[in-house]
């Protein structure tokens, strides 16, 4: 592979799954209807759950705070619609577990107007103000990870942010939210960049975009405001370039150390949609109420990019867009890293970037699993140069500790490249996810034993 990419900036290995983006990348973002009942888990992000500050039966305004941040690595939750808190109870989540949440009954005539508080001017605000503002707005990474953005932006003592990297790669097949955001919300993105540059102290920003979104790249570079130190970098199409580490390597030619953070190589990476959100919300002191979601897949009748209020139940979304009768699987996120949904009563959260519906016809089910023939396809696909072949065999024989100790298991970020190429249909990613769970569990147990 390396040979053919010679001269282009990119990372090692990687794969080229079919893109399927043309089905939705020409469709502008449309506003979605309000569902009658919204389901809002308090844990929509990585970190401590938000603390509920409303009571059952309480009436809330769209944009009003429902729950405040439960700590530093946490964000508040705002009401996506005006309505009444029906119940505070266990709500279903995409992970399949029940967790604490709020059932919010929308008023039948709930409008689009939003409760605002004091805005933040990017020119006068201090970096600390901006970080606080971002946390107050409830902003998390909208690319899918849902990590609280203000935490990520905080440059640790002694470190220097050289480049602010805007992630407009969107390497997952099918998904086009970032693509549409870049085309339609350039102003917000540039405004967001202003805030981010100030917050991180970075001298310049680079927007990384894959070559299959040339129109977005051109649109952005044409509209760069005077004096804003932003460049647009187009990189070759390759999965999983949208991963932070891969993007840094592609654009900056540096490698984030194992177990380290982008800031260790002088970069802070923020998703373009998150940036647009910051640019839109911060001047007005608002919180997140809705996000752009690509709804697509062979099982969907009205494909497109929709602006959907957070908390909208999946069932409602699918009913609105219409799905095929022989619907078989529904995924949240892209087809490579997205999660299958077992329960349609779960809701759209801040991290939901796409909804894919596949019918019986598209889902490959009876794949026979062969033994690993050591063809090396996975080794040539793994973007972080692990040895999935060997790790798969070790996992099969339950040698989890060996995988972590000798094979850098914990560096795997489950991009799915290995499983995608495996001719023997070995569920490598599932093995690794499982093994990581076991390793973490054992490490925790060990730590506990040491403390006792």
């Amino acid at each position: 592979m390396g040979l053919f990419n010679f001269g282009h900036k990119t990372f090692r290995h990687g794969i080229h799954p079919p893109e399927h983006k043309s089905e939705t990348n020409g469709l502008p973002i449309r506003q979605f209807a309000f569902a009658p009942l919204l389901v809002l888990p308090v844990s929509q992000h990585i970190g401590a759950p938000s603390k509920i500050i409303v009571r059952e039966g309480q009436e809330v305004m769209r944009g009003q705070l429902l729950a405040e941040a439960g700590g530093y690595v946490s964000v508040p939750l705002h009401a996506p619609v005006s309505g009444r808190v029906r119940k505070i109870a266990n709500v279903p989540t995409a992970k399949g577990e029940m967790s604490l949440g709020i059932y919010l009954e929308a008023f039948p005539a709930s409008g689009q107007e939003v409760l605002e508080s004091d805005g933040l001017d990017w020119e006068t605000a201090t970096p600390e103000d901006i970080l606080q503002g971002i946390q107050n707005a409830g902003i998390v990474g909208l690319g899918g990870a849902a990590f609280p953005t203000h935490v990520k932006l905080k440059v640790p003592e002694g470190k220097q942010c050289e480049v602010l990297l805007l992630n407009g790669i969107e390497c997952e097949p099918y998904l086009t939210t970032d693509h549409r955001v870049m085309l339609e919300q350039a102003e917000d993105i540039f405004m967001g960049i202003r805030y981010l540059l100030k917050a991180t102290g970075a001298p310049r920003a680079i927007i990384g975009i894959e070559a299959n979104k040339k129109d977005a790249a051109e649109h952005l570079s044409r509209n760069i405001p005077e004096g804003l130190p932003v460049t647009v970098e187009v990189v070759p199409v390759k999965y999983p370039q949208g991963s932070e580490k891969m993007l840094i390597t592609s654009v900056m030619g540096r490698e984030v150390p194992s177990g380290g953070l982008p800031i260790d190589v002088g970069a802070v990476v923020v998703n373009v949609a998150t940036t647009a959100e910051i640019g839109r919300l911060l001047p007005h002191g608002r919180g997140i109420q809705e996000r752009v979601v690509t709804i697509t897949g062979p099982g969907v009748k009205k494909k497109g990019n929709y602006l959907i209020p957070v908390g909208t139940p999946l069932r409602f979304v699918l009913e609105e867009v219409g799905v095929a009768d022989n619907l078989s699987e529904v995924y949240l996120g892209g087809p490579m890293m997205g999660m299958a949904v077992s329960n349609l009563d779960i809701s759209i959260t801040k991290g939901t970037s796409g909804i894919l519906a596949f019918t019986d016809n598209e889902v490959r089910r009876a794949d026979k699993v062969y033994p690993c023939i050591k063809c090396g396809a996975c080794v040539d696909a793994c973007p972080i140069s692990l040895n999935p072949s060997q790790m798969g065999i070790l996992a099969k024989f339950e040698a989890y500790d060996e995988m972590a100790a000798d094979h850098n298991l914990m560096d795997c970020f489950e991009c799915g490249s290995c499983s995608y190429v495996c001719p023997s249909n070995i569920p490598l990613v599932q093995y690794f996810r499982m093994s990581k769970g076991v390793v973490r569990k054992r490490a925790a147990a060990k730590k506990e034993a040491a403390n006792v």
Partner: protein
Amino acid sequence: MFKQTLHISTSPHLKLGVSTDDIMRNVVWAMLPASAFAVYAFGLSVFLLLVTSVVAAILTEHLLCRWSGKESTVNDWSAAITGLLLGLTLPPAFPLWMAFVGSVIAIALGKFAFGGLGYNTFNPALVGRAVLQAAFPAAITTWHPAFLEGRFTDIASSTLALPFMEPTYDAVSGATPLSAFKFDGVAADSADLALGLVSGSAGETCALLIVLGGIYLIARNMMNWRIPVSILLTVYVLSGIMHWVDAEAYPSPVFMLFSGGLMLGAVFMATDMVASPLTAKGVVVYGVLIGLLVVVIRLWGGLPEGVMYAILLANAVSPHIDSALQNRVYGTNKKAKAV
């Protein structure tokens, strides 16, 4: 609206869609031209030889699976590859009963005992062939002439030798190009070698058709091109140097490339994915090692041909190559362990 139960499965939800049996099947297709030429050159005897070895391999695999209570793995096509490959490496008039024994050994000892497909650390066909070479050294070095009159109607008498009995030969050609060179210093014509107009093992004579099969597999991304290329390059360069040093004692590099089982070995045997290393670097070292051993054995060893031994030895070394030449893990200076 939602008529049926949802299904859930793990990510990624997309698949490249080339499966192991596809690869194996295509390897068989790629070997067919060379096999067809073998039948054309040596006639009915080779046809029977190939059929025997393939059938024996498939039968052994099936029965072993049955006895051990496993699901039969015959339809992954790997047994067919082993059988066909073994058949192609045998002399044209090789007794069928010996070929049968070889196939059984290849599958039972070379593959099944190690845990079946995916775990065979040696190329099973070569294990079979190595045992045959050691068991019946005379029969396996007795060459039948190519393009005999009536080869499509008559069967060589040695082909039908009774089981456990010593074969008798009716037409014995002098020697393969390699043994002719080694012991008598006679080098065969390069064009004859490339076109397969010489005697030798059933499937190794026509280098061009073997290369064709290899190109097909490489084009379909079902073979690691680095292996044959590095083997052939090493042999070419090394023997080129030796030939340049002493043209009398050492054959020309072209002769080295096209004679004997080098092409067949480099394209179809060394490329056995299971027994070769994983990484690109490792595979190149593996190929160079094979090339080196082939040249050493052919030029200085006691045997005229060393491809089989070279590949088996490299198979044995490949775990070490794997552990020494892993890719550097992203963001570290450390290489993952392989073994």
